[in-house]
């Protein structure tokens, strides 16, 4: 007869074996890489706050909230209002394009289009969403601006209107696909109930589907605004670097993102107020987009109707 196998010994041996060491180490390795994403956030917040602090300790708050922005002037002034104004105006123009077109496209794709047409149109939307923003910037500057100049002769080569429109076009796929997701998650039984009462497709869309999906739709709008505020290359190329405080969208104006790009590609050396102003603008930009994203999350969680 063979020696009796002691199962307990084998288990004990296994527990002490090398395999078990990797078994214990791997979760820690994974935890470490998961914490990289937290480190990134911490890094962003820390750098923004530290360097902004240096900026705010040099520049009085009254100057920061003024309309005069002249960082390279002999008598420099760091008013942020022209940048906020430029950001909000270009984003508004973008929303005027993206929301109506995106929402109606979503309604078409979700409610009206046949399955076959939907399957061909959606990938095209995805292609539109995958084009790098620098390409849109080139498109705005070399095509849309000259085109608009024929309609509005007073339009400058750099203006807020053309990049605003192109930014809106860039955001259309985002609004369309997020709203479409919200609308197609409305259960069919609700539509059928309305159809049974004799409603047309349009009435079903407006009176049943949209009210039911409203949280997702509004969240997509808010995310789109956040995207427009953070968009960089289109406005840098299309809208130029004029730091005037103006509401005239045919003129050049600078957004917060474009200011950051202009200033680093220029030679604002480390240690100057101009260098730290980048981080102050970055901090405000970060807060703007963060608040928007949090609002979007809040809306889609709080007002979501579960079916």
């Amino acid at each position: 007869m063979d020696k009796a196998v002691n199962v307990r010994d084998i288990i004990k041996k296994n527990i002490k074996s090398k395999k078990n060491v990797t078994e214990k180490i791997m979760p820690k390795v994974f935890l470490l890489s998961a914490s990289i994403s937290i480190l990134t956030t911490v890094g962003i917040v820390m750098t923004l706050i530290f360097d902004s602090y240096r900026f705010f300790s040099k520049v009085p708050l009254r100057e920061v909230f003024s309309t005069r922005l002249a960082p390279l002037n002999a008598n420099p002034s760091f008013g942020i209002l022209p940048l906020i104004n430029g950001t909000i105006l270009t984003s508004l123009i973008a929303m005027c394009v993206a929301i109506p077109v995106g929402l109606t496209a979503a309604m078409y794709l979700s409610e009206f289009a046949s399955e076959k047409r939907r399957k061909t149109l959606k990938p095209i939307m995805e292609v539109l969403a995958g084009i790098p923003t620098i390409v849109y910037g080139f498109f705005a500057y070399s095509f849309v601006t000259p085109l608009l100049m024929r309609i509005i002769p007073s339009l400058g080569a750099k203006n807020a209107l053309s990049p605003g429109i192109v930014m809106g076009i860039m955001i259309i796929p985002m609004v369309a696909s997020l709203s479409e997701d919200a609308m197609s998650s409305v259960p069919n039984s609700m539509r059928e109930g309305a159809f049974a009462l004799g409603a047309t497709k349009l009435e079903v869309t407006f009176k049943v589907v949209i009210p039911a999906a409203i949280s997702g739709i509004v969240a997509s709008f808010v995310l789109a605004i956040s995207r427009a505020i953070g968009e960089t290359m289109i406005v840098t190329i299309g809208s130029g670097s004029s730091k005037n405080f103006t509401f005239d969208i045919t003129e050049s104006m600078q957004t917060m993102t474009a200011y950051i790009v202009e200033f680093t590609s220029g030679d604002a050396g480390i240690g100057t107020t101009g260098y730290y102003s980048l981080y102050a603008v970055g901090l405000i930009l970060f807060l703007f987009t963060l608040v928007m994203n949090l609002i979007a999350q809040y809306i889609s969680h709080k007002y979501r109707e579960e079916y």
Partner: protein
Amino acid sequence: MGYQDQLITSESEVNEKFKSIKKSPVLLNKEAWNKRMEKRIIMDKVARKIFSLSTVFALVILGILFYRIGVQSAGWLNLKFLTGNLSIFPEKAGIYGAIIGSVWLMAVVIPVTLLLGVSTAIYLEEYAKEGKFQSFIKTNISNLAGVPSVIFGLLGLAVFRRLFGLGSSILAGGLTLSLLVLPIIVVASQEAIRAVPNFLRDGAYAMGATKWTTIRTVVLPASLPGILTGCILAISRAIGETAPLVVLGIPTLILAIPESLMSDFTALPIQIYYWTLDTVLTPEYANLAAATIVVLLVVLLLMNSIAIFIRNKFQRRY
């Protein structure tokens, strides 16, 4: 009075009933009814047309964009342009250096994001216990995905360039882009891992496999197509990203071809940016920018087709 007395059997009866209560009945006034129905149906048709038009609008814009860029790049996009070095003279300029620079960047981005992204996803899906910490990481990742790319440029400038002293090297640019696209690959990998059914895991456990062995031999191979698709999407985002690199301060005119991770470099999107900026002085730069855009778009289209191919060919539904 039973309910049968309330049943209406003829139109005239209704009319009479309504007359006694109020004015003329609207309910069964056929003419008015038809008119209203017609209006509703027309509205429905008009709306359908308008809605489809706005979808077509997106399509048309895409067409115009491709057409314009194609026209502007015609004649400029040739082998000499692809293999030539940069030059301030538009006729001589080529983008070989930019192509190599982009390839180098991806050589940093791919391993870093794949390693970090997949292990983060494994942690979140397989190891982390449901709780505050897990949901904290998840919220954090979804918020990171919404941070504008310029901000990542500022992070790279402060941390990789200033703190670590990496300068405007490939490594600094690559690491910055890696952090930028990390959320994309984490979310994609999470979805892929979640889609692996539990009975596969249970089977492995039943055969005596430990947790890590199960993940390594069962979960990861099964979720590989999804992870690869996410990886390709992340790379195609990184390869076209301009703002963070410009913020890092990549020099304008680089003539040398990058040789190591620490070399200065230029990349395709940066080249497009500088040429577009300088079209005021030299109009031909617009053609060079358009030709570079064609190269970039072809690369992106290729990568997306590969992603779709992988998704269709290898993805299994359990």
